[in-house]
């Protein structure tokens, strides 16, 4: 059985005003900003391949798009994910249980 989405009725709007204020401030700042013309990627640039090269600090000539090397963050994220996996397992396990 499917139900129609209904708007929630017990929303406490007062703190939400803070979010609205944030949006207002950011919107004003963004709209008054000028980023200049869009440079864009070169025609025929291999974007996906560039991501791969960037991830492993590999050097290639054009048409690869330039980027910074991300090998170290890549490794760091690997550890973070590992830790998250461990943490998730630890949390999900029943306390005191070995199962």
């Amino acid at each position, binding site marked *: 059985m499917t*139900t129609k*989405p*209904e*708007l*929630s*009725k017990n*929303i406490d709007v007062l703190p939400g005003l803070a979010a609205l204020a944030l949006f207002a401030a950011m919107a004003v700042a963004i709209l008054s900003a000028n980023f200049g013309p869009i440079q*864009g*990627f070169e025609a025929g640039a291999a*974007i*996906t391949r560039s*991501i791969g090269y960037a991830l492993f600090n590999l050097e290639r000539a054009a048409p690869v798009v330039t980027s910074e090397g991300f090998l170290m963050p890549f490794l760091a994220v690997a550890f973070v994910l590992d830790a998250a996996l461990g943490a998730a397992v630890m949390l999900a396990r029943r306390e005191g249980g070995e199962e």
Partner: protein
Amino acid sequence: MIESLTFALFAVVTIASSLGVVLVEDVWHSALFLGAALLSVAVHFLLLKAAFLAAVQILVYVGGVLILIAFAVMLTRDPGGVGE
């Protein structure tokens, strides 16, 4: 021109489904709205020439994270009453 139109359309979709995520009563509906929002973000990625990222967005978010959330929603359903 077509790009601007696509952007406008999907911007509306993104905003609308994001609002849906936070405003609807049922968590399950929220999760579905989240899926819609994430998918529309993938479209924005495509517009920005980030095809790979769009694919990853769909695979990881919609295929992974959303499934996890859906599981969590179902696991935390109050057995007796309606959600939230």
